[in-house]
């Protein structure tokens, strides 16, 4: 039995494991053993090593004594000169451990009957070599790679039915055999071996463990490569790090985890909380065109599918960043590639992993809304400050009454909508379960997961249904690997992901904006969420929702309560892979075929009633006047919509979406080593993919057509002696988006690497103890992109509507009908020249390892020049009369960046260990060619030299001191509205006395962060482990949107209702009594941007340049010790948290949300989890 290092337990362990294994291999290869009488311990006897440590042989014997029945008798000091031995945490076979003790020298030992082992040192061992006996009988010993004998290995004579099994000492004997026979050695979990008998009669067979095969390789495009030989820029994230973040959406765990990946999350609404992420800085414009290519098990998926992947199912997670790494994906990989493989079964007994988590989720920040009294006072101020002769909206009496705690709340409503609508926390659950194992014929990995995320919306008990967001996800994955024959393998992967969403109507897909934004948009003193029933409506079995007199205001509570939406989606994917080993043709040649079909389906159903709305009866109470006497506490409700309201729920329709993807790939892979020095590899791969949406976007023909890709790609690798590496890649891609003449693009790249530490001269330097690894690698190449963005899919096709809107209306009698005909409308001129966007990418990296690679540092720099970026032509004058816009491949951007990843791991003592890691990504990009006009007149409006996501706006000087300053400053009339003291004053850059479009300048940092970093550490002491991970972003700006924040302004789509007041505005605005030129909000107004546009311009006034550092993740885990009596179960419990602390100079809302601050907030999560590992 063996302890399996469950990845969820200690995410850093596997690396250490690999590291230690290497040391062992080294030790055993250089040692001479003197065991002649076989092993003393049973194969099954294992010794538990609690901690990574370096021990003396005496200490090992102590261990063996403690955990076995044996005692040791030996002369003191006998091991004095023997080297100390490095033990890794885990379990080790006693035999192996013992051998370790004797590896340094030659010892002899005798086992007596009382399980006492007497050890003696001998000075000379005489090797006994048997004379070859010319008999048809051979003997041999089968060992593993460490030299341990393996009992129970099946030895069969090929072509015959007979065979033997190795004995306890791994020995076997076969009689009556001829030199031409072949013997096959096979054992569970080991790679089978076949040998020719020949003339040897004494055989030494070494079987390799199958699981060792994954060590020291890196997942690369369409395959794996020895880690040492990789020259391109590939970052692999330790899967454990992703798994330790308590989220059911893996995209939210990515930020800060690896170099080169920029990620941020702008809303936390369940089902809608996908984080945005880019690889390096995407230099294209637009939203969709920056997304990296995401591949799960070689098949392209979208972000949604990634977000539904259970972190526990992930075997490896890498991102490919430079041209050489992504070259094989050609046009698809221009924005980088995310490469994920899912777990597969391993030969052996079934292993069951169970993980259950229960999380408490709450907003990281809560937007503060001013109380209703302040609201009314400030509303009056907003009116009077602009027009002193106007009448205030709320009378003093009204304000006083509302302030009265004993008031009638129906007559003097004061509603904190956010409070009404939301609660403080939600409880979420997750359960992951997997079973894996396998035998010689097949291996399997079957995993299922279930999660339920709940929203933080309030519900009213009177409703028969729960309208809070309830988002359930189920996933099922089955990976089965079948060995069809010795040379043929068949992998079948089936996966399904199912979402069940239930929540308020319109919430899903809106980024959680609905409820939160409406809470801010709703007038706090116009009506209560629900009226208490008056005498006339005392009977009402329904909620008496408040509204204004004609029912045209939005009561967000009513909207939330009045219905719900069922939204269900499913993604099914079936994949078949055929691996054919063609060693028969030439060693090292393999063929692979992958076929994948996936289908996505989604539908939503909405059920709601049209709420009954009420207001205080006209005549008794007018929200603007106070005709109701304060003494009166009677009130009468007025039903606003008795004819259209209903209390019975009805079906109100939804949407359906379906799409289908088919993918096929065939590849030929060749890898071989010649003369032990020349590693040669080649790969050819052809792929095809088709995507077809059942509900084309905008119901356009062009979107109804399948999206297809076709590619041929190749890679040639050459390595010499583990020192020099070269690689040439190419992708040759076809895209249906271009005209025939340009449909295929060729994108080559190459890379070189040099492992200096493997050079003789480096070894001679003698610094290898300090600088243990020193590798230089670099790549250069082209990458294409066919996802150009812009309004059209096919720029090469013209789009002419021959039946556009009717015109004419000729005829002298309207009653007889007029003569009209459709018109012709041209929306796109066919442009056959529109072509691939091409990026030239260069990458240079160092891989440094110090102190036996305890410390590793990988600095990396890159330079990308992206040209042919599609851009709208700006120099088309109106006089040309084009009814459409022209596009061309004009723009060029350059981006450069630096990435550093640092890892350090060490043991402090036997019980204590730690790992530190950190990464830093700095990326900046710049537009170098841009089709723009007006820059001769106003050079500062030029985009050239700025980031593609640079924002432009006015430069706010300060708030106007007084009306005199307004009169004597550059005219801002063109911006609109009456400008007064306390309004924003802009800098007249060109000093022409007018503030207009030529006074716009680049302001702030780009909107996507230029710096992203993460650092953290893990620390373990005995059974306890703690990890912390900080993540942060810097160098980015965002803009508050005054249109969404301005208090008292009418809200679009509502009548008679005005936006609420943020406490921050109430506390920090300019007023006549507090003429703060730098107040955070200008002079109040109840007019929105259409009447007061001056203050609503994009400017430095609303700009927030910020950075943040947050405790992204923290985990404390405890592994229940084996000694506690639980024999076959590994148990670990842990408490973890996400987004626990945030440090930023911006505190209005979560700084990661940027300008989207009124959306459903990001969540802070406290999580309790328990893991079981059944063996």
């Amino acid at each position, binding site marked *: 039995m063996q302890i399996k290092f469950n990845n969820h337990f200690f995410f850093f362990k596997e690396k250490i494991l690999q590291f230690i294994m290497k040391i062992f291999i080294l030790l055993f290869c250089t040692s001479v053993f003197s065991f002649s009488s076989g092993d003393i311990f049973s194969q099954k006897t294992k010794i538990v090593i609690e901690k990574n440590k370096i021990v003396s042989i005496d200490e090992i014997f102590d261990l063996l004594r403690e955990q076995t029945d044996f005692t040791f008798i030996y002369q003191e000091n006998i091991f004095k000169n023997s080297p100390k031995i490095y033990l890794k945490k885990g379990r080790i076979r006693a035999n192996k451990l013992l051998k370790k003790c004797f590896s340094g020298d030659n010892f002899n030992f005798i086992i007596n009957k009382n399980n006492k082992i007497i050890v003696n040192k001998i000075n000379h061992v005489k090797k006994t070599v048997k004379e070859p006996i010319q008999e048809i009988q051979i003997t041999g010993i089968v060992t593993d790679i460490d030299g341990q004998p393996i009992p129970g290995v099946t030895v069969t004579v090929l072509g015959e039915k007979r065979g033997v099994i190795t004995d306890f000492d791994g020995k076997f004997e076969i009689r009556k055999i001829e030199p031409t026979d072949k013997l096959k050695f096979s054992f569970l979990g080991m790679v089978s071996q076949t040998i020719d008998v020949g003339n040897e009669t004494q055989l030494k067979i070494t079987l390799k463990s199958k699981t060792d095969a994954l060590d020291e390789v890196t997942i690369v495009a369409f395959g794996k490569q020895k880690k040492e030989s990789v020259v391109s820029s590939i970052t692999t994230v330790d899967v454990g790090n992703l798994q330790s973040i308590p989220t059911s959406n893996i995209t939210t765990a990515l930020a800060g985890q690896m170099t080169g990946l920029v990620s941020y999350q702008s809303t936390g609404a369940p089902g809608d909380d996908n984080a945005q992420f880019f690889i390096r800085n995407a230099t294209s414009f637009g939203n969709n065109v920056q997304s990296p290519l995401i591949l799960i098990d070689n098949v392209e998926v979208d972000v949604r599918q990634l977000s539904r992947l259970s972190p526990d199912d992930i075997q490896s997670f890498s991102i490919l960043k430079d041209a050489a790494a992504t070259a094989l994906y050609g046009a698809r990989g221009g924005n980088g590639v995310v490469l994920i493989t899912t777990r597969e079964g391993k030969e052996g007994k079934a292993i069951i992993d169970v993980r259950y988590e229960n999380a408490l989720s709450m907003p990281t920040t809560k937007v503060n809304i001013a109380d209703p009294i302040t609201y009314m006072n400030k509303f009056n101020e907003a009116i009077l400050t602009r027009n002193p002769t106007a009448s205030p909206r709320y009378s003093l009496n009204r304000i006083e009454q509302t302030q009265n705690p004993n008031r009638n709340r129906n007559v003097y409503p004061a509603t904190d909508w956010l409070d009404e609508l939301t609660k403080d926390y939600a409880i979420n659950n997750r359960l992951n379960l997997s079973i894996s194992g396998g035998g010689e014929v097949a291996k399997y990995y079957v995993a299922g997961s279930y999660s339920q995320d709940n929203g933080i919306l309030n519900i009213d008990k009177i409703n028969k249904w729960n309208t809070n967001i309830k988002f359930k996800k189920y996933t099922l994955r089955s990976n089965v690997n079948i060995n069809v024959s010795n040379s043929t393998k068949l992998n079948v992967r089936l996966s399904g992901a199912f979402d069940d969403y239930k929540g308020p109507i319109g919430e899903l897909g809106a980024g959680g904006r609905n409820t939160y934004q409406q809470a801010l948009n709703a007038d706090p003193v116009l009506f209560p969420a629900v009226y208490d029933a008056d005498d006339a409506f005392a009977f009402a079995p329904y909620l008496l929702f408040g509204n204004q007199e004609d029912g045209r205001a939005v009561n967000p509570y009513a909207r939330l309560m009045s219905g719900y939406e069922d939204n269900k989606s499913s993604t099914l994917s079936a994949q078949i892979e055929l691996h054919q080993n063609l060693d028969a043709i030439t060693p090292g040649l393999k063929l692979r*075929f992958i076929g994948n079909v996936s289908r996505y389906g989604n539908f939503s159903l909405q059920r709601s009633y049209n709420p009954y709305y009420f207001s205080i009866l006209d005549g008794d109470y007018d929200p603007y006047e106070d005709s109701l006497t304060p003494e009166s506490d009677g009130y009468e409700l007025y039903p606003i919509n008795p004819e259209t309201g209903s209390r019975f729920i009805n079906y109100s329709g939804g949407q359906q979406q379906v799409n289908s993807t088919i993918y096929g790939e065939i590849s030929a892979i060749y890898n071989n080593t010649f003369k032990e020095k020349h590693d040669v590899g080649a790969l050819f791969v052809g792929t095809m993919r088709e995507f077809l949406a059942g509900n084309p976007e905008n119901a356009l023909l062009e979107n109804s057509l399948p999206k297809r890709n076709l590619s041929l790609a190749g890679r040639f690798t050459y390595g010499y002696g583990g020192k020099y590496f070269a690689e040439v890649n190419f992708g040759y891609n*076809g895209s249906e988006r271009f005209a025939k003449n340009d449909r295929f693009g060729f994108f080559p790249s190459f890379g070189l690497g040099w492992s200096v530490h493997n050079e003789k001269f480096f070894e001679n330097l003698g610094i290898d103890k300090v600088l243990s690894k020193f590798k230089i690698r670099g790549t250069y190449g082209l990458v294409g992109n066919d996802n150009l963005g812009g309004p059209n899919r096919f720029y090469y096709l013209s789009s*002419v509507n021959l039946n556009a809107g009717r015109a004419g209306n*000729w*005829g002298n009698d309207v009653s007889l009908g007029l003569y009209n005909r459709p018109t012709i409308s041209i929306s796109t001129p066919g442009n056959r020249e529109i072509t691939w966007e091409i990026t030239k990418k260069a990458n240079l990296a160092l891989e440094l390892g110090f102190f036996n690679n305890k410390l590793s540092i990988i600095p990396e720099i890159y330079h990308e020049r992206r040209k042919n970026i599609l851009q709208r032509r700006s120099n*088309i004058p109106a*006089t040309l009369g084009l009814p459409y816009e022209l596009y061309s491949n004009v723009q060029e951007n350059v981006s450069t960046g630096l990435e550093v990843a640092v890892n350090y791991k060490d043991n402090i003592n036997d019980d204590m260990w730690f790992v530190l890691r950190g990464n830093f990504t700095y990326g900046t990009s710049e537009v170098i060619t841009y089709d723009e006009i007006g820059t001769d007149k106003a050079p500062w409006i030029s985009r050239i030299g700025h980031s593609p996501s640079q924002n432009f706006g006015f430069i706010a000087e300060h708030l106007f001191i007084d009306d005199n300053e307004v009169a004597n400053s550059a005219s801002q*009339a063109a911006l609109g509205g009456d400008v007064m003291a306390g309004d924003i004053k802009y800098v007249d850059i060109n000093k022409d006395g007018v503030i*207009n479009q030529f006074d716009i300048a680049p302001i702030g940092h780009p909107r996507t962060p230029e710096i992203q970093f993460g650092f953290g550490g893990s620390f373990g002491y005995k059974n306890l482990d703690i990890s912390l991970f900080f993540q942060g972003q810097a160098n980015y700006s965002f803009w508050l949107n005054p249109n969404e924040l301005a208090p008292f302004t009418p809200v679009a789509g509502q009548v008679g209702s005005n936006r609420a007041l943020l406490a921050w505005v109430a506390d920090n605005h300019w007023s006549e009594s507090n003429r703060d030129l730098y107040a955070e909000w200008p002079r109040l107004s109840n007019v929105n941007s259409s009447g007061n546009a001056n203050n609503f311009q994009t400017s430095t006034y609303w700009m927030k340049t910020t950075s943040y550092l947050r405790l992204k993740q923290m985990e404390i885990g405890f592994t229940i010790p084996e000694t506690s009596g639980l024999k076959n179960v590994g148990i670990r419990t842990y408490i973890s948290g996400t987004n626990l602390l945030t440090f930023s100079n911006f505190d209005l809302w979560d700084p990661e949300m940027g300008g989207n601050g009124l959306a459903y907030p990001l969540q802070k999560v406290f999580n309790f989890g328990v893991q079981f590992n059944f063996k």
Partner: protein
Amino acid sequence: MRYIKNIRINILCFILMSYGLVSCNDYLDIFPGDSPEIVDAFLDRNESEKYLMTCYSGLPNDGNLTASLPLLGCDEIFYTTDDVQFSASGPFPAPFRYGYDGANTSGNPFMNFWDGTNGGKNLWDAIRHCNVFVEHMPKEVGGPVNMDESEREQWIAEAKVLKAYYHYYLFTLYGPIPIVDKAVSTNAGVNEFKIYRAPVDDVVNYIVNTIDEALPNLKDHRNINLAIETGRITKTVALAIKAKALVWAASPIFNGNSDYNVVDNRGIQLFPQTEDQTKWQRAADALKDALESAESNAFALHVSDGSEIRGANTSDATRYRLGVREALVLHWNEETIWAKYENNGSQTIQQWAATYYPGTQPQGKNVFQRQAPPLHIAEQFYSANGVPINVDNDWISNNWYTNKYNAVQVGAENNTEALQGGITAQLNLNRSHRFYSTLGFDRGYWEGLGFEEEDFKHLEAKAGEVSGALGVRGINLTGYYSKKVCGINNTFTNPGQGTGYQHAPYAFPIIRLTDLKLLYAECLNEAGTGYPEVLPMLDEIRSRSGILPVKEAWDNHTSLTNYDNQSGLREIIRQERINELALEGGRFWDTRRWKTALINMNTPVRTWNIWGETVADYYNVVTKLRPSYSFKNYLMPISETSLVNNPNLKQNPGW
């Protein structure tokens, strides 16, 4: 290179096809069939007709309040669309951005017909369509084969005239404009896009020549199928456009306007700096041609016969009051030379002008009583004697003029003008029939509405009254109502509930016969023709509204004889035009053309106190707005974007 490419494709295909997957040549060719291109629009007569419609569809919607610069860009009406939010303390409402509140800027021009923004149509777009049409129609370049040659020529001619009209429209807004006579290829160099503004005279000549070119192939109005062709360009329409272009060329704004001195990069003066009197004669000649053509095609002044009114006996007064209104709102009446029908426009302008009246429930959401002419528009109309009220002997001797803002009880002698016994302003009584044709007012009658003459309804316009500012819906800002633009018998299907306002749709006139006649009178006067020859043209139009001939009116009711000299007659003609074409947009064009807008448009906007609930409160003159119209407002600004795009364009002065 191509060879290598093919090899690559073949390798790829070999691999993929060997597994029976795809055929490369077809795999990426996903677009089924062909995609339509411009030439497909000229495949046959049917498609070409659609393209011709496309050329027509560029016509500005002058009759649609939301898109009409002549209606919105002028001081004739004011309105608010914000019926709910608007309150007594609120600001004077938009959208009078043109020349009023400084919101018309070169950065963001109001009603921009150059770039097609802020309510304006992109006329260059329309011009390009015409050019494409003209260039593609001939058979020899791939035009439709299945159509008659004469029809083909006629269609091309129509497109040419439309092109000329679009140039004309831009010309009246911007003055010198680039001439775009062909559809420039998008592949042409950027320098070909950077065209210059042509001097005024070149623009006019281009319009004239283009129309002259088209004339022979156009149909005469009398030869068209009225049921399906009314509204197309005919010879008369083309001649009228040509004449109007020449009138603009002769008018003060473009004829020796030294205020506007613009020299472009090439050193070319865009505005003629010296006046050329002969331009008036050239315009007069063109108008003569147009009028002759109109006459020969049976266009005539519309005179009401009272048949629109229910009941047998319609008085002369009523018929006079219907005259000019019918000439506007009767769909294609005999004096409509060219009009554009737009369903939305026709509905909007009528519903926004319509009002409630006693007996109706003011809740109908499709009656808005918004279009509100200010006081100075009400004052510009003649007295009952057909002379300006400030020179009318009766008005002076009775002190009506001095006391014009006083509230008076309506006596029997004025009982057709306003509700007898009711109280209204002195200003609203003893006015010419054309005043009552055009405006509604407190206690004034609203002819028609489906009622017989004796049942004609009057308005009650004080605050709280049915047509007044209720503070809820349908606010008239001045106390005057745009009666003229409403169909005669627009009714409520159910007046008691105020629902279902029915309107009679009509094509909004682009050119009316009276417009041409008055222009002819103007040109003759300017060209030096004596008043005896000029006055009959005015008198004919006045007589339709029951207004005395000029000489008789002036001689008998004023102490003036200013009709006998050129400048005096000029004033008379101008006032006649303003009154005749009131609320139709004429004032917008004419005051700019005459260079009088600086005075006219700067008149303070005065209204009755619409929030007054009593006579004493209501009949107070309130100055709502003091416009700041400046000389730059005569011409529209070219947007900064366009100037930046094409540095060869010179901005109009002042912007």
